[in-house]
């Protein structure tokens, strides 16, 4: 197996566009599009001693209110249409983590956890899209 050891990959024609081949060999995809641009396992709302919080491209998190977490990105997105998902270590089978689209921006995402009432919990979150 050959191996390239380098610190940085840059597209030759377009700096932000490097193409890779699919596992089955019949398709290609843009490497940058498949890479998560931000993620966190966050315990700002509720500290769970089992988890060790960690994050990528998250500058800060804010406890807005019960069940409401605000995340601020270090490097912002180019537009407010990025794709984010999440889940929580909740306390009931009815916990639902959602985002509040109207309060999200290129630099922040507004996350809520709800099971009939707003509940604090450890939040796992990830976002895809184009960075600025």
């Amino acid at each position: 197996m050959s191996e390239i050891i380098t610190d940085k990959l840059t597209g030759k024609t377009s700096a932000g566009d490097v193409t890779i081949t699919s596992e089955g060999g019949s398709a290609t995809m843009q490497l940058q599009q498949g890479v998560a641009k931000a993620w966190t396992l966050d315990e700002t709302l509720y500290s769970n001693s089992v988890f060790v919080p960690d994050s990528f491209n998250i500058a800060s998190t804010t406890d807005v209110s019960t069940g409401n977490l605000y995340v601020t990105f270090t490097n912002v997105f180019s537009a407010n249409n990025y794709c984010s998902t999440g889940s929580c270590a909740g306390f009931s089978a009815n916990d639902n983590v959602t985002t509040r689209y109207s309060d999200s921006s290129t630099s922040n995402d507004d996350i809520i956890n709800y099971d009939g009432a707003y509940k604090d919990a450890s939040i796992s979150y990830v976002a895809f899209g184009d960075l600025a």
Partner: protein
Amino acid sequence: MSTLKADTIVAADGSSPVTLTKQSAAKAWATVDAYQATTGTTSSFNISSTTDDGTGLWDNAFTNSMNSTPYSVSQIGTGGADSDVYVRALHVRGTYHTEPTPASMLTSGVGIKSVFAGGSSSYSGNIYGYAFGSFQVYGDLA
């Protein structure tokens, strides 16, 4: 710091996929907008079309198909632009028209449904449209 400049990276045999050491890239993702009058995606990757399949139901076709089923889908609903009591969850439908079981998933696309998860509404627990939703797909492409 060394920088490698290239437009395409493949394995040494010239065709196989290159290994991303201990990492895996998402193979598709989208933010579906059913809150507006016209259903569609506000942004996406490897999604050729999003079709309204009924209230709160969306069919998302892949541009490049997955290699096999099952594959991994994570998803989330959003509260849209209205009051925050309108919390909506997003669920995966295995195929466009059935509930999820691994055997019934399609390599060509994934179905998503929106459920009204809470708030002071009689809709609670029911399939509900007019929501934003995001999902991501992981696995092997064909």
